[in-house]
Every structure is written in structure tokens, then in C-alpha cells.
């Protein structure tokens, strides 16, 4: 039986200045190489959502881009929430994650309600957290590049994606030395600051998301490996090792 998945890519025009489209490319390519038929649906401001989706991606963007999509996001939030609650994995990166959190507190101290898909709050600060980062997670060590200006707090009981080994993470540029948290995991869904992009650089998480999407659709979640996957996974593994080495790990 042919396995098919639909990936919903939210606001790729506005929330796509950090190469986060690479996450969608990694999901699509890794699924296609396993013989899974993938449809990627871009949702931009004013578009109509498809009837059903299996994976949702939202990338990062500047404050002005967040403001540009906010009204449309408010319109589609009930559908997004329903999908996430029914087990559709959501991957949200940095600015996109902020939009899907509970709220954003801007530099003036004003609280803006966000979509509420993740139990997290982002407080915008002037000092940016910029640089390579290594995080220890349940699916192994992940690496990437962070470039954000927020302190992100998780609600009591929420689970971080992992523990920062080197870099800033949720605590932002004010992070003191010590093991801080990075990202959030909620069921099959993930919020993280990592670019690189996240999934091409950390393919174990790409396969975790794909498997969750397949299970949720009632499909066989077997994800076979072949030479093409071995080649990109080796390149990704060496990329992570190079970052860890640069950070003195």
C-alpha cells in the first residue's frame, strides 16, 4: 500500500530568512527516499488550509514578519490546535515557535497573546543570542546555530527538547554558565531555536517526526535506510562533530 503524507508549511515567504525551509526539504526528501508520497502545502497569508495534514512546520523570521502573519495565524489557530491535539507533529523554529507559544512579551513589557499551541512564553530582549549551539536530547546530541533575542520560559510541567551543552538556548544571551534548557517537546511536537537547519543537521529528529506522522495516519512507521540516507546522515554527523569541536567540546 502506498504511504502518503501531507506537510503543511506555514508562511514560508515571511518566516523563512534563516533557511528553515531546509526542515521541510529534509522531511520531504527522507520520506520520498523511503517510497512515501509527500505533498507539501505552503500556507501564506489569505490562503485556505487543506482538509487534512500530517505534519506542520513553521520557520523563523523577524518581528515585522511575525506581525505580518499574526492576523492570519489567529484565523487558522483553532484548526492548528485541533491538528496538534489529534497527534499531528508540529515543528516550530525560533520566531515561529514564539508565535505558537502562549504569549510574547515585547521590549516595552506589553504582553501579546500568541496561538497557545506550546506552553511557552517568549520575552523579547535587546541582547541577541547568536552562535553555534550543542544540545543533549533524548535522540542524541543535536547541533545547530541560534540567532534569537528572547528569553523563553516553559510552563510548569513542560519538557524541554534537551539540555544546552554549549551555547545559550531558552535562557537567551543572558544565560549564565551552567546547564540551561533548550526548546520544548510536547507529545510529537517540537519547538526549538536551532537553525542549521535543525532537521537536515539532526536527522534522528526528522525520522522521529516522520514516524509519528505515519503512526498518527495509521500507516506502517517503518523507515528503511539506504545509501543516500547514509551519505546525508554521515555528512550531518560530521557537521555536528565540527560544531562541537569549534565549541571546545
Amino acid at each position, binding site marked *: 500500500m502506498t504511504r502518503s503524507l501531507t506537510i503543511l508549511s506555514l508562511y514560508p515567504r515571511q518566516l523563512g530568512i*534563516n533557511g528553515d525551509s531546509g526542515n521541510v526539504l529534509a522531511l520531504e526528501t527522507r520520506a520520498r527516499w523511503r517510497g512515501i508520497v509527500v505533498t507539501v502545502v505552503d500556507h501564506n497569508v489569505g490562503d485556505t488550509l487543506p482538509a487534512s495534514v500530517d505534519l506542520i512546520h513553521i520557520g523563523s523570521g523577524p518581528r515585522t514578519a511575525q506581525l505580518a502573519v499574526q492576523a492570519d495565524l489567529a484565523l487558522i489557530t483553532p484548526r492548528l490546535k485541533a491538528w496538534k491535539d489529534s497527534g499531528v507533529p508540529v515543528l516550530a523554529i525560533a520566531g515561529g515557535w514564539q508565535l505558537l507559544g502562549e504569549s510574547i512579551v515585547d521590549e516595552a513589557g506589553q504582553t501579546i497573546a500568541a496561538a497557545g499551541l506550546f506552553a511557552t512564553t517568549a520575552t523579547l530582549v535587546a541582547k541577541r543570542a547568536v552562535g553555534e549551539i550543542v544540545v543533549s536530547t533524548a535522540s542524541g546530541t543535536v547541533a545547530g546555530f541560534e540567532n534569537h*533575542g528572547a528569553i523563553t520560559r516553559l510552563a510548569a510541567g513542560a519538557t524541554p527538547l534537551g539540555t544546552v551543552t554549549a551555547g545559550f538556548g531558552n535562557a537567551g544571551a543572558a544565560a549564565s554558565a551552567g546547564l540551561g534548557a533548550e526548546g520544548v517537546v510536547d507529545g510529537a511536537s517540537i519547538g526549538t531555536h536551532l537553525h542549521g*537547519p535543525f532537521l537536515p543537521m539532526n536527522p534522528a529528529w526528522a525520522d522521529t517526526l516522520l514516524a509519528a506522522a505515519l503512526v498518527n495516519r495509521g500507516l506502517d512507521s517503518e523507515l528503511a535506510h539506504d545509501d543516500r540516507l547514509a551519505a546525508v546522515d554521515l555528512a*550531518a554527523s560530521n557537521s555536528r562533530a*565540527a560544531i562541537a569541536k569549534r565549541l571546545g567540546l
Partner: protein
Amino acid sequence: MRTAVAILLGRMARWATRLRGGGSAVPGRVLLAVSPKALERAVERMPLGVVFVSGSNGKSTTTNMLVAILRAHGVDVFSNPSGGNLPQGIASALLASMPLDGRLREEIAVLEVDEAYGVNLSKVLRPSSVLLLNVQIDQLNRFFEPDRVVKMLATIAGAADAHVVVNANDDNLVAVAGALTGAAEVSYFGVDAALLSDSPNGLANAEVYSAKSDAAAPEPRVVVERLAGVDATVSIAGAPVDVRLPARGLHYAVDVAGAAAMAERLLGARFRPGLVASAMLALDTVYGRGEILSYNGEDIEVIMMKNPPSLQLNLDYLAEAPEQLFVAVDEGTPDPSWMYDTDFSHIDHVDIVSGTKSWQLATRFGYGEIPVGRVVPELKPALEAFLKLPKPTRGTKTMIVNYEQMMLIRKMLGFLELENAP
């Protein structure tokens, strides 16, 4: 007196750093430390004033072109060498030609300025005219987001009181120009609509996220009408001029249009469209932009991977997929994530990938299903392996590299040349 002392000290520093073969910013720093007003004083009596050239991409190339066009008209021009667009670099350049009274004798200063440093430089050097090229996704690790660059360029443009010349195809800049309230006269340059829509990825200018203004689209005085390889036709205030570009790509034609538009405004009745063509023919290629290196009698085309838009346009205007391709990126590009937004359909394989970011590049090419021959993170063996490849049957060996790798490669090629000398 203080000025003369500062200049002499600066010149001594310049002489000392040259002996050492060191960087060019130190003498400028000495000058600025001893005489903070030196920059201001140097340019304040120039008859045609000071022109700033700024934007995300094409600053060096366009400055070079504008200087060449003005010189072709017999104008005596002071300019900063390409890439030396920070305050110390500009001060160092001033030292080289500054008389002891501290006042430049040239008629005009044409300065390439960094977007961020340009804000303060505009207060000191008070440019009478400003040429704004584009706002593109660039150096996010430094600028964070394009909007900050828009604000910087708006401040720089606000300093002008004679001419502000703006890219009509850049929505961010059109908005900046529309909001100017000073005495400067605003004019535009751009690309013919049909030609622009033929460009595979347009001009890659940053999107305007906020509501677009409903003001009528600006009417450019200088328009790129035709492009075929390195030959372009630019219409300047209605007069068509055929020009030879320094390298392939619509972005180079746009740079010519910007330079010609500013020259036409500055020179007024003295301006001769035909001199744009002759100036372009005599132009030296700006260091490392669309450059051909020569090694053992073989040409190697170098494409700079400066930032997303310049890489995209350089790729879009490749004559064909290079038969032999070398790609190298290091920490000069702290986060190459943006390569996932680059359309690599114009290349069909990469022979060798190098640099500290080589495995990240290999990952990107893997997902683009672009075969990679070898990954050799260390530059020297990578370069040697690439140079050992037999001469391609068509075209030239091609390199896509970031600025820092480019500088290392130039050094190494010189060194290898010596090693291989008979």
C-alpha cells in the same frame, strides 16, 4: 598644527604596517585617535561634495563603476579602496592622499560605506548625495533582520541634501525614498519589467513585510533594457547605451544603472552617456567579484558566496553547469543555513567541498541530490586535488567560495606558483 601631526603620525603608522605587511586599518585608527575631526575636515570643502554608496550587495562594484564614470568625465575623484568601508579603512585611505593641511584636493569623494557604520559616518562626513543599491538578506548573524538595515539606510539617505538615487525595484528602498523629507532630490534606477521577470530568481531583494504603500511605482531615469551574457543595454534618461559588464549577471547590470544614474545627477549638463560605455570597458574587476584567477596557464572562474542574493544571481547567470566545481566555506560565514533557500539547479555536481563548513555544505548538496565527489575540510589538500584535475573539456574550472576562503586561495595559488616555477 594638530592635524598635521596627526597626519604625520598616521603616515608613520602606515609606513610601519606596510613594512610588516600588516592590515590597513591601523594608520586610520592612529589618525582618528590624534585628530578625531580629521575625517570631517578632509572632505568639507570638496566642490562636488561627498557621495555615499551603500546597500547589502554591490557596494564595491558600484563604487568602482561610479568612480570610473566620473573619471571618464575628467573629474578628480577620491575614493576608498574596495571593501575598506569601515571608518578606520576610510581614514587609512584618506591618509594616503591627504596634504598636511588635512584637506583633500579632489573635486569629489565617492565612498563605499558599510550599512551600520554608515549611520555615524553620515554625521561626520555629511554626504551631499547617497546612492542606495538594495536591502537583501545579508549577515543575519550581525544585522539580525533586514528591517534594521532599512532603518540604517534611511538615516544615511536622510543626511543627503543634493541627490538620493535609489533602486526602483527594491520595495524597502522605495519606501525609504518616499519618506524622505530633506532637500535632496530623489531619482531612481531599475530594470525593465520584462527583463526582470525573465530573471530566474528576480533580484533577490528582501520582502517588505509591512503593508506596501499605494504610491505609484517610481519612474526610473536609468533602466536596464537588455542583457545577454556580459553585454547589456542601459537607457540613461532616454539614451540607450551598450555596456560591457565586469561579469555575467543582472545584478552587475543593475550596478551599472545605479552608478550611471548617480553620475548623471551629479554632473548634470556635463554628463555624456557614451562615457559610461567607455568607462565600463576600462574597468578593473573588483577584487574577488566575478574574478578569473590564472594558475599554470589555466583560467579559474571564482564566484563569491558573499550572501544569499549574490550567490543566487551568480548561479542564475552561469553560462552552463560547471564541468569542474570546487566549493569552500569557512567561519567567515558563521551560519550557512540560508543555503537551503538557494536554488542550486544550475549546478549538477560538486567535485570537491572544503572549509570548516564543508560537511554542512555536503549535507545541503545531499538534500539537493547534487552529487559530491569528495569532502576535504582542509583547504590546501582540497585545492591541490582540484588543481590536479585535467583541464575541463568545456568552460573553465569554477570555484564557489566565501571571501575568507578566497583570500586564502589567492595566497596559496601565489605560493604554489612559486613552488612550480621552473
